[in-house]
């Protein structure tokens, strides 16, 4: 919503400065988007008179002018290419150093074809006043008296344009008068009274009938249509003052009739339409469009309509997309003699829906979809009539009204004390009353409960909270004192995080502590990638994706992390370790969202650091690096990965031989880890081998801690004993099985089993390997004798052989 300061002052009697007005508009909820003071950019330009114009000695199309820029002072020499430059012309002069907004150039002293120009005579386009560049500005000769004065001051161009960003609840402030009313209530002046309108009663019946043709008045998109015929007008350009105001706020003047409708729309928030009555056939009516019906609109485009849209039509054609845009055919031109003014009420939802379907944004739609004042239909029509008569003449008919204005006075039961209760703001009752009344509310009753009726232009007011808002914003939210929020617990703050939240936090720091870098990647990914990672169901596809790479809710975090690894490879990184802790989706239900901590390592991005180092070779990050990541993460979250089963059934995006799943029982999957399948790397364009893990945080068992105290430490005074064993085994026997067998040989004495050597090849044969373990025996009661130790050793050997077929190595 744009208006000029002088336009505002048509409605507001005020002495406030522009800065005060700006501040107040911001405070009361009419946020100022910008103030454009055209006088500012024109400040350097002055009125000047050409005393003499001679041909340029070196150029046919240029002239050398002698210009009087200050009365009585010597003239200056200016080179000018304008065809209309001549002796005696009064125009606009820009001195050296001035910035020319239309060309973006700052004037410098330099010769033009050998003659130095000491400034410039300007065209309107160079001042960004219009597109006119046929010649320099040619003012009335009488303005020669004003030589030396500022052009913008002399011509009255210093009217600042204020643009406000309206929230959708304030249709009343799509009118300059509405803005003025708010400012008056906020103490910035007084609202000027409405002028009485005379001579608009009309002396004959309109020859064009007006009809509402809807199946039922309930739910009809147009509930009231008022009109008036004016015969014998003489249309032409609108008066200069009107053109100036319209131009200032970016409205293009068309002709007087059209300009009047636009002027009233801005001034009163009341959109109007005017038909060239001679181009209408029969009665004019509001009705639903027929499917496929077409209309050539005023913007030159043809729109195809459907039966959900309201149109204004005559007996033959559609002439108007109701409340949105008029039709070309019956539009008014300079030749128009007889007109029909339409002042109608269109339902906001219908307008919004139609406007959106057709993709048309107009000032009329902007107002109707917010809700125009239903109490201003007849007055609006009369105001339009009065202005038409004043400007284009003619004889008006009587009003013709179909339907009824949908004015529904809305009463709110309101206690003034509510302002204090909701806002913590002390406002005197008299001040509350004054504020509401100045905004147009009426207050009945004696309190403490009052009946407050909202004015017809405030469809946004429904309840007491809305009235509190009116009082508070006019008083100013800045006047509300801050009040400390009382502590809930009285004393020291209690912990607030849930177990799940604590885990997410800890998971991030645990992985960062392992040298990994946290990424945040998109929740939606490419459909083919989603499918590859076990997702992509239709229920998780977006109906309106923003790009083909963001179509589907991700089934896991690896697609995003691998894609990120790919991008970083392209940036020149070879060893990458990235992780993310975030959500993924199994379905569209609220329980289908789950939290994953996942990480990717590529190249030689191991735990101790990536890349080559003098202290050792950089070995590629593989399955054991990510197994360590997953196990360390689980440990950080209080889960002993050693107690989980390791099964060789990781999903298809992992290398089938170098991956695994960590489980608690058959159903609970804690994690997957492993090298990424070469086919997956290819799909995601990752140029190097990569390994990854996924830990499912929601699957972790809940912490069972009952007391903060830890169990007593059972440290034995007896020294533990270790014995080493080496077994020769078939290569496909899992080390985990050997460890478990050894551990099971004596559950009380054996407190630990470590794998300390793995050897394949040599003289063992291709299908054999040697695995060496260190078994720790922890006596609890007394030191073990050699015989006892030998007995346990024998049990270890026997148990490993039984379970795995492994032979003790001689």
């Amino acid at each position, binding site marked *: 919503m744009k208006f000029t300061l002088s336009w505002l002052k048509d409605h507001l009697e005020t002495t406030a400065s522009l800065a005060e007005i700006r501040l107040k508009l911001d405070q009361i909820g009419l946020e100022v988007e910008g103030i454009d003071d055209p006088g500012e950019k024109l400040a350097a330009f002055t009125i000047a008179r050409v005393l003499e114009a001679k041909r340029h000695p070196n150029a046919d199309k240029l002239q050398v002018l002698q210009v009087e820029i200050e009365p009585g002072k010597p003239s200056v020499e200016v080179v000018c290419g304008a065809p209309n430059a001549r002796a005696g012309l009064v125009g606009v002069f820009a001195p050296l150093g001035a910035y020319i907004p239309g060309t973006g150039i700052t004037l410098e002293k330099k010769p033009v074809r050998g003659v130095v120009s000491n400034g410039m005579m300007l065209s309107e386009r160079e001042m960004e006043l219009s597109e006119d560049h046929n010649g320099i500005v040619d003012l009335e000769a009488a303005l020669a008296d004003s030589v030396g004065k500022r052009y913008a001051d002399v011509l009255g161009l210093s009217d600042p344009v204020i643009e406000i960003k309206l929230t959708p609840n304030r249709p009343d402030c799509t009118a300059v008068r509405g803005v003025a009313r708010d400012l008056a209530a906020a103490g910035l002046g007084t609202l000027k009274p409405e002028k009485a309108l005379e001579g608009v009663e009309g002396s004959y019946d309109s020859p064009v009938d007006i009809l509402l043709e809807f199946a039922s008045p309930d739910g009809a998109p147009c509930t009231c249509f008022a009109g008036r015929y004016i015969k014998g007008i003489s249309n032409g350009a609108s008066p200069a003052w009107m053109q100036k105001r319209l131009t200032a706020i970016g409205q293009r003047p068309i002709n007087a009739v059209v300009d009047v409708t636009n002027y009233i729309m801005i001034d009163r928030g009341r959109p109007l339409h005017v038909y060239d009555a001679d181009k209408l056939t029969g009665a004019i009516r509001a009705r639903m469009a027929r499917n496929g019906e077409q209309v050539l609109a005023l913007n030159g485009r043809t729109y195809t309509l459907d039966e959900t849209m309201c149109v204004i039509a005559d007996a033959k054609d559609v002439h108007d997309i109701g409340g949105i845009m008029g039709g070309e055919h019956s539009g008014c031109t300079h030749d128009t003699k007889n007109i029909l003014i339409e002042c109608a009420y269109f339902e906001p939802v219908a307008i919004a829906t139609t406007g959106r379907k057709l993709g048309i944004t107009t000032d009329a739609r902007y107002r109707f979809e917010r809700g125009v004042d239903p109490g201003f239909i007849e007055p609006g029509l009369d105001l339009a009539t009065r202005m038409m008569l004043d400007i284009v003449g003619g004889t008006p008919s009587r009003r013709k009204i179909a339907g009824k204005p949908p004015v529904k006075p809305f009463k709110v039961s309101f206690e003034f004390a509510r302002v204090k209760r909701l806002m913590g703001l002390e406002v005197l009752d008299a001040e509350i009353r004054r504020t509401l009344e100045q905004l147009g509310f009426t207050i009945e009753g004696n309190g403490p409960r009052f009946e407050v009726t909202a004015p017809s232009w405030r469809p946004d007011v429904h309840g007491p909270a809305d009235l509190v808002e009116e009082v508070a914003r006019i008083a100013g939210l800045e006047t509300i004192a801050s009040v400390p929020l009382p502590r809930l617990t009285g004393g020291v703050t209690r912990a607030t995080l849930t177990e799940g939240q604590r885990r997410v936090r800890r998971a991030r720091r645990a992985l960062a502590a392992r040298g990994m870098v946290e990424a945040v990647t998109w929740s939606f990914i490419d459909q083919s990638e989603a499918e590859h990672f076990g997702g992509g169901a239709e*229920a998780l596809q977006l109906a309106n994706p923003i790009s083909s790479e963001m179509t589907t809710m991700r089934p896991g975090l690896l697609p995003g992390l691998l894609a990120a690894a790919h991008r970083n490879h392209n940036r020149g990184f070879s060893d990458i370790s990235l992780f993310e802790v975030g959500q993924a989706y199994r379905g569209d239900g609220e329980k289908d969202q789950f939290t994953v901590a996942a990480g990717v390592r590529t190249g030689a991005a191991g735990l101790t650091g990536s890349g080559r180092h003098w202290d050792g070779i950089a070995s590629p990050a593989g399955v054991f690096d990510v197994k360590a990541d997953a196990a360390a993460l689980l440990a950080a979250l209080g889960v002993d990965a050693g107690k989980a089963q390791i099964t060789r059934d990781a999903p298809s995006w992992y290398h089938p031989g170098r991956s695994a799943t960590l489980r608690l029982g058959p159903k609970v999957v804690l994690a997957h880890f492993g090298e990424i399948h070469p086919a997956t790397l290819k799909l995601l364009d990752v140029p190097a081998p990569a390994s990854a893990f996924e830990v499912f945080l929601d699957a972790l068992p809940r912490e069972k801690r009952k007391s903060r105290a830890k169990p007593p430490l059972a440290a034995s005074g007896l020294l533990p004993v270790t014995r080493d064993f080496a077994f020769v085994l078939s290569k496909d026997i899992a080390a985990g099985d050997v460890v478990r067998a050894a551990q099971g040989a004596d559950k009380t004495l054996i407190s630990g089993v470590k794998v300390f050597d793995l050897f394949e090849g040599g003289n063992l044969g291709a299908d054999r390997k040697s695995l060496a373990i260190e078994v720790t025996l922890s006596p609890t009661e007394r030191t073990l004798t050699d015989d006892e130790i030998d007995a346990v050793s024998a049990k270890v050997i026997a148990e490993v052989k039984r379970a795995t077929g492994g032979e003790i190595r001689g």
Partner: protein
Amino acid sequence: MSATDVSAIEAELMAEIAAAADLAAIEQVRIGALGRKGRLPEMMGRLGKMAPDERKSFGAAVNRLKDQVTTALEARKSVLETAAMSVRLASERSDVTLPVRLGPVADGRIHPISQVFDEIAEIFADMGFAIAEGPDIETDDLNFTKLNIPPEHPARQMHDTFYLKSPERLARGEAPMLLRTHTSPVQVRTMLSQKPPIRIIVPGRVYRMDSDATHTPMFHQIEGLVIDENTHFGHMKWCLEEFCKAFFEVDQVKMRFRASHFPFTEPSAEVDVGAEAIGKPGKWLEILGCGMVHPRVIEMCGLDPEKYQGWAFGMGLDRITMLKYGIPDLRDMFNADLRWLRHYGFTCLDVPTLAGGMSS
């Protein structure tokens, strides 16, 4: 054997000790003097054949000699050991200019968004706010209807909101699911499931169909909600002022509350912070929207709007992160560029606490 002989032996042994050039030589001297067949045991062996008087004085002389030799041996050995160690140390020399790795704790990074989320959780925990969460894929009802956003509201249109295809729901005549456009549905979920007093903050991902220099189709919001029987706008002002001071780590902060409009609050305000807080005086930064929860929202969430009232606020987590830490471009947040993450990220030790400070 006479005392003179003892003196001669003493002189001899002392000379040998002094002459021993290394640890092996001193050991030889020790064996020669004190070993089983050494000279001192041999002298002691003669005692048995001596007369008692002689035995007494000779014995005493030999014992004195033994003490002297033992002490001299120890002293010489110590000197030789020190010399040997010096020789060894001189040969053991590392090039201490070779570089070392700082290890994983120095290499790893926490994303700025996660860091700021932890900071905010810490600050609001002190004011008694728990953290509430909800799903990204939401129903139309919780994302819009229960927040007083009517069906024809522009936010509900396809050009603002991501909808899912939801074939089965559509077949059942239900509305399709959508990606939440704000964290506010969690307000609704909380009010529907919890009794006041309520104090929560809601951080999370939100989605809007927007992509340009300052918008991404996914971003983060943080929302706050307080509901009880008498909490009012003044409490909200205080809470937001305290938050801004703690978050930007300044003693004073300039704030400006401007009346505005949101469907789910009434009255509503937009809040600007004086850019002094981030060291750029003279400007205002729009950082959040807030207001008193609309009575209709309270009612739709199953609470009595005559009894309960409250306030809510929402702000862009990415935006305040960018403001605080001088991050220029929103889009980089989701680009996973290692150079960017290492530069703007935090180490695992940078845990924000009230005692230690937010950004240390």
